[in-house]
């Protein structure tokens, strides 16, 4: 838009200048000027605008200087066309000194116009940039919020608060313990940075807090069997792997069966891996409702990002002991032991 507008203004200015000075009749000159202007000004704009932006350069002077030089070139070419190409068709030749005068006036006019154009496009660009920045900021905020929400586990949090509320009347001591555990768990999950490695003992502590709260929530239905070696000094694993897997197992187990839910968690340090096994019961015939399995896909995506491997999370089913419809689901998580963490 600004380009078209500039061409029209420029053409009118030049024509009126020439006619005023008495060098040409306006009809012929107009035709000529418009033709030349359209082509040349488009070239001119294309050559200046794409490369020189006031916002991108550190100093204004080189940009304006370039604008002036381009304007001079443009004016010269235009006058040259007018003077030499169409000289036969124009009644009055320009005397030598007037030629330079026209050149000079045209140059000033065009430069002024060019700089105005530059300023306008500068303002537009600035506005667009602000819009873009706002958009980016918004996206960032959204992502941040999502992460926070994930860390807060709203469903878990409010159910736990509700359980504490119930315990305040029935068992104030347990209520207090549970509140402390919930606080500790939330503090850890919120504070936890997405760092490369964290202490395995800290991860297991956090897991214990989580499990203790869930045990209070679900009472006798939830049975946790843990087989974890005591010596974990100095061992490290990436965060956000263990707890989501256990959470998934608990949810899967609790919502897929009616009776007692046994969650077994074992940890073995093998030659090159820490091997976690987490098992939960499930109904052979059931159709998982929407939403289950998200924890698993999240963990395997994370493992892929960390180790570029797809075989670190293995899922298996095995028949249950009793002959009812309850089978066992086993998730095996392999975390490569990194050399610098080995003793």
């Amino acid at each position, binding site marked *: 838009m600004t380009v078209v507008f500039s061409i029209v203004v420029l053409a009118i200015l030049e024509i009126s200048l020439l006619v005023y000075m008495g060098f040409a009749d306006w009809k012929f000159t107009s035709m000529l000027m418009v033709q030349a202007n359209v082509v040349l000004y488009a070239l001119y704009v294309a050559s200046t605008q794409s490369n020189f932006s006031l916002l991108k350069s550190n100093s204004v002077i080189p940009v304006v200087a370039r604008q002036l030089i381009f304007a001079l070139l443009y004016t010269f070419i235009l006058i040259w066309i007018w003077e030499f190409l169409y000289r036969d068709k124009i009644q009055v030749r320009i005397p030598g000194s007037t030629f330079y005068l026209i050149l000079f006036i045209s140059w000033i006019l065009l430069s002024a116009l060019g700089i105005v154009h530059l300023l306008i496009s500068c303002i537009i660009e600035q506005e667009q940039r602000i819009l873009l920045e706002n958009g980016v900021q918004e996206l960032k905020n959204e992502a941040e919020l999502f992460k926070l929400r994930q860390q807060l586990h709203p469903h878990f949090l409010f159910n736990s608060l509700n359980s504490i509320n119930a315990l305040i009347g029935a068992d104030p001591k347990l209520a207090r313990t549970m509140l402390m555990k919930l606080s500790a768990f939330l503090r850890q999950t919120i504070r936890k940075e997405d760092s490369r490695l964290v202490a395995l003992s800290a991860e297991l502590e956090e897991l214990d807090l989580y499990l203790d709260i869930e045990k209070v929530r*679900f009472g006798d239905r939830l049975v946790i069997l843990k087989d974890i070696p005591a010596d974990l000094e100095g061992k490290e694993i990436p965060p956000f792997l263990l707890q989501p897997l256990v959470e998934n197992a608990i949810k899967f187990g609790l*919502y897929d069966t*009616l009776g007692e839910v046994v969650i077994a968690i074992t940890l073995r340090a093998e030659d090159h891996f820490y091997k976690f096994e987490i098992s939960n019961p499930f109904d052979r015939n059931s159709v998982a409702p929407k939403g289950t399995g998200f924890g698993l896909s999240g963990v395997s995506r994370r493992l892929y990002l960390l180790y570029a491997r797809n075989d670190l999370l293995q899922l298996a089913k095995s028949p249950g002991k009793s002959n009812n419809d309850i089978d066992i689901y086993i998730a095996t998580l392999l975390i490569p032991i990194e050399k610098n963490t080995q003793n």
Partner: protein
Amino acid sequence: MLKCIIIDDEPLARSLMREMLEPLEMVQIVDECANGFEGLKSVQTHQPDLIFLDVQMPKINGFEMLELIENPPSVIFVTAFDEYAVQAFDVNAIDYLLKPIEPSRLEKAIAKVQQGKSNPKQSGDAPHIMLPEQTQRVVVKEQGEIKIIPLDKILFLEAADDYVKVHTKEKYYLKYQTMARFEQQLPAQQFVRIHRSYIVNVSFVNKIELLEKEQYTVLLNNGQNVPVSKSGYAKLKTFLGI
């Protein structure tokens, strides 16, 4: 006096609810249930006026349980996180309470139930259940037993008065629900309504046979025939891309 049942899978949540309801004179707790199966049985034996229903529960969720009750009592949903709010109001729940529950909110909700009771116009109709979300399974009841049928086991559905026959390879189950409701609930990329009284699972369609002039029938993999209406035939044709 309102007879009520508490249905929640967390024991502490149930005892808290009991603790909050006991001082209220207008309600009487007749039962507590830990899941939808117990809940359904209890609703049938006690015929309560009101149920407090959790959403996330073992095996079948609160909404699915509600679907199996033919004349459901008033429902107050009680849940921890508000992702289900829209759904709850679609099933005409009296109210929707968030855990931990504020006592004044609970009293207000019960007051709403009482108003509904004294005004037969409001409580006259059975709740019209409308789940906007599409299901991946159909929960049915058979001689008091609850069956969960995965969608890929369903051959077709057939209207039968107020019920719908859900046909599987072995047998059919009756469910108190409308065809329109099923059509809305089932994933459109798998189930097509081919007749006023029939919805077919297209993955079981073997061929479409011409019966007589402009009269078609669908032959399923297991040899069963399902009638197709004129508009149903057009729908099926565009769906299968022929």
